[in-house]
């Protein structure tokens, strides 16, 4: 038999009691066979990948006393991103990133495609939800002092993720290609252009030329659905790895417990 990793810390109440001697008729029910098949299938994969160790390392971590709902904001942001990724993939099935067809394809999604209005609404409003959540998550990290040693690098990664999220908002805003999108992008690109020295070249890069042209939309589309989501997913992995590696911080109002003996000694 292969060596087994220690079982996750499941509370006693949730564990099923082992069958006692003399109970049952010794025959396995269909349910038992089913459970056994599932267990052996999972074992088959685990024996070849050792995934359970990593999963246990990620999922069954010790968390400090005082951990509360504020600690779920990071996961909430991640699920907002996943929702954007899934709805975005399906919107891409109908959307055409061309200056002459983008508006028409968006109109088709909204007015004619089955559930199109719903999926587009999820994507549109979900983007706002993600931006709000990422800022609240950042605020939580700041006010709880969770950016301090040894978690500075995770703060830096988080800031990059924030910038990438804003890039997503900016590039996604153009895609419906209505009057609001068009003029908002003109204004946004010109704000980029006010950066000294590099600004004018950055504007040319974003527009793919001196004027808003035929390739500006496809450029924004590629940045929006290929470049930045990949970077966000990769950095999110690094962000989560560091959270699991370093653990979470206790809230600032939780004081470390010291024995009276030690306290008097120190005084």
């Amino acid at each position, binding site marked *: 038999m292969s060596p087994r990793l220690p079982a996750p810390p499941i509370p006693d109440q949730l564990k099923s009691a082992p069958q006692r001697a003399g109970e049952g008729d010794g025959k396995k029910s269909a349910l038992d066979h089913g459970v056994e098949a599932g267990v052996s299938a999972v074992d088959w994969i685990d024996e070849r990948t050792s995934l359970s160790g990593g999963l246990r390392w990620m999922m069954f971590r010790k968390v400090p006393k005082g951990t509360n709902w504020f600690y779920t904001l990071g996961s909430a942001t991640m699920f907002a991103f996943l929702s954007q990724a899934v709805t975005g993939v399906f919107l891409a099935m109908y959307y055409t990133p061309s200056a002459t067809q983008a508006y028409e394809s968006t109109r088709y999604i909204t007015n004619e495609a089955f559930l199109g209005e719903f999926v587009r609404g999820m994507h549109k409003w979900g983007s706002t939800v993600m931006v709000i959540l990422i800022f609240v998550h950042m605020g939580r990290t700041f006010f709880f002092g969770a950016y301090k040693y040894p978690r500075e690098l995770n703060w830096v990664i988080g800031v990059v993720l924030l910038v990438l999220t804003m890039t997503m908002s900016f590039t996604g805003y153009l895609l419906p290609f209505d009057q609001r999108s068009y003029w908002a992008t003109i204004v946004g690109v010109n704000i980029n252009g006010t950066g000294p020295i590099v*600004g*004018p*070249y950055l504007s*040319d890069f974003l527009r793919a*030329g*001196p004027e808003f042209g*035929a390739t500006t939309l496809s450029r924004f589309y590629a940045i929006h659905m290929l470049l930045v989501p990949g970077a966000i997913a990769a950095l999110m992995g690094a962000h989560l790895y560091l959270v699991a590696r370093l653990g979470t911080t206790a809230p600032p109002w939780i004081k470390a417990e010291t024995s009276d003996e030690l306290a008097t000694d120190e005084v």
Partner: protein
Amino acid sequence: MPDRHEKTKSPYTADRDYPGAFEGETVTRRRLVTGGGQALGVIAAASFALPALGFALGPVFERGKATWEAVGSPDDFIAESYIPKVITTTRRVGEVGKTTVYMRKHEPSVDGELKDSYDEYVAISTRCMHLGCPVRYIEASQRFVCPCHGGVYDFTGRVVGGPPVRPLDRFYTRVRAGLVEVGPRYSVNSELKRYSPRDPGEPLDGIGPYLYPPRFSTPELPS
């Protein structure tokens, strides 16, 4: 203090007792193969990364061609007020590539002397110099007004109120075969001195032209 160089190993692999070392050999075969393998990896990565990067950055360095578009006969324009005309600044994008220009005849009492032959007609761009929204000309007040953030310009396009950082851009104009033609865009500072076209929000007074240098994508100016 002992001489540090005493402990330095000989650069020759033969002196360091490598099995099979050649006479005069300084780099071991293992190091050579490792380094060569890494170099090949860098070359392979660069061979797709650099062209892709160049592909994305290309438009920044691509120089467009100056285009001229006829907008009407000289009789269409007067010196006292602006006539709106629509020109195409970008091709292949439909209505998006079109823009309005406000045009009038050059008036020495307002504009001073003719700078050159491209100055006989004044063509004012509707692009607001705050952040690029479209301005419109209000005849009653003889002002250009921007709807976005309240930029206001006078009859010559100079800023009289709001956030814009420089007067409205202009276009070169010329008369060919009895028709007035509108050419490439240019920017002006508060004294209406010509500069190569800059994006909105980039001042051209003082150190402005140095903070916001001309771009490579500017079409060649008519000489």
